[in-house]
């Protein structure tokens, strides 16, 4: 056991020395791996931010009913009574046109524009929560409400959240595809480097075999080499993603503030960083395994 551990230590140290022996080549390889990993890792950071945005928006289906500008308060009260009795309506909120005007003036930097208008352009509105949240049931209710007198427009408010959710799903799938492709790229880089190493160390492999080295003994330094390549590339990717996040955080916060949305970029936390490094090391190791399977048996 002691000898086995000692050989692992020696193999790791030998792999490190081989990496350090060609610093320029090693650095360029690490950079290539790092950039390949930084793309999906950075994409994941952006997606997390977008998910945060979607999380703050209500995904509970609701229907907004906008009244015509000719509708007075008495008609609106009438409408309210009808809605309270309407089947399928679970909650009801009446938002007066004055409330909407005040809210719009308070935010989103539109005060000057709104104050320049000759009259209040906003209609009275009802926001209703429904009992049956199935899309077809909601659509049926909305269609019925559209026929009511005084109703200008009926809008299903959960639609944009659903669209955003669908976009996020698409983003996740695209990211997974990108990560898989670039992961294959990392495996290929490690494969090529280890193949070259095996060819360079041909004499040592031959002598070691003659002196009684097992195949595991011969392969071990190359496996460490592959893992170190992956790990180093992962570290480069982590640095790139963290630096980019810090660089973009302030302008992103400023932009989000203008739209009053909660969109903040976060640097990878300790778990995400650990996963990135482990994932990278495993891919590097995998490249070495494939390479050894291909080359060392013919050496």
């Amino acid at each position, binding site marked *: 056991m002691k*000898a086995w551990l000692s050989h692992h230590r020696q193999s790791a140290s030998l792999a490190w020395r081989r990496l350090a022996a060609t610093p320029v080549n090693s650095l360029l390889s690490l950079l290539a791996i790092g950039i390949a990993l930084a793309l999906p890792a950075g994409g994941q950071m952006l997606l997390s931010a977008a998910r945060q945005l979607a999380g703050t928006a209500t995904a509970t289906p609701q229907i907004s009913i906008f009244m015509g500008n000719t509708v007075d308060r008495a008609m609106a009260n009438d409408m309210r009574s009808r809605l309270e009795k309407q089947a399928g309506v679970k909650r009801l909120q009446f938002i007066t046109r004055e409330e909407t005007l005040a809210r719009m003036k308070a935010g989103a930097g539109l005060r000057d524009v709104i104050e320049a208008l000759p009259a209040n352009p906003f209609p009275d509105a009802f926001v209703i929560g429904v009992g049956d949240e199935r899309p077809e049931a909601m659509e049926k209710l909305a269609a019925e409400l559209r026929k009511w007198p005084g109703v200008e427009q009926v809008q299903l408010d959960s639609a944009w959240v659903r669209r955003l959710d669908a976009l996020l799903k698409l983003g996740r799938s695209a990211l997974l595809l990108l990560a898989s492709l670039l992961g294959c790229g990392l495996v290929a880089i490690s494969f090529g480097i280890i193949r070259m190493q095996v060819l360079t160390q041909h004499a040592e492999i031959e002598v070691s075999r*003659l002196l*009684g080295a097992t195949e595991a*003994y011969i392969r071990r330094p190359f496996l460490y080499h592959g893992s170190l390549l992956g790990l180093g590339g992962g570290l480069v990717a982590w640095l790139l993603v963290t630096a980019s996040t810090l660089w973009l955080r302030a302008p992103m916060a400023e932009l989000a503030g203008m739209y009053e949305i909660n969109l903040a970029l976060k640097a990878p936390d300790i778990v995400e960083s650990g996963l990135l490094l482990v994932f990278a090391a495993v891919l590097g190791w995998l490249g070495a395994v494939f390479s050894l399977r291909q080359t060392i048996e013919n050496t």
Partner: protein
Amino acid sequence: MIRFDRVSKRYPPGVDALLDLSFEVSEGQVLLVGGHSGAGKSTLLKLIAGVEKSTSGAVLVGGQNLGGLPTSALPYYRRRIGMVFQDQKLLFDRSVFDNVMLPLSISGFPPREAASRVRAALDKVGLGKREKALPIMLSGGEQQRLAIARAVVGRPELLLADEPTAHLDGDTASDVARILLEFNRFGVSLLVATYAHELFPGGNRLLLDHGRRVG
């Protein structure tokens, strides 16, 4: 120690390197294998080292039939024998010390004990003061002595040497032969493929010609 029982080795596409060869080497004995180039000397050593397998017949070393040895057991078998190659097969990017350390690292020796064994082996072949040098900095004779140190550091039961004195001048060749015979005096069986039988006085001889025993 070694028994060849009607051993033949044929390489594709039908070249016979050894034909129906039988001989025995007992423990502590010296066997000098002679013959012209292509006689089958190196093939014989490769069969004993487990690098090649015989086409027919049995090769037994220490009572073990190498033909029946599983591939996974071969490395452990090789650790019991020391090999000196004609081209030495030294690692030129490693120091003298590290070259000799290699078989002990492979066998998993504790580093401290291994270092002390390496120094003893280097002292024995007269390279004690060159342990930090790279093999390229050594003369041909010193390189051969380094190869011997690497072969004996694991204290093998059997030492195989393929033309260990080839390409060396008279005095250096005698020096290398003397060192090999010294290890034989400690009980190591020695099998040497060589033209220079006179350098190994007292050794038994096996003469090959086109893979057949002729003397």
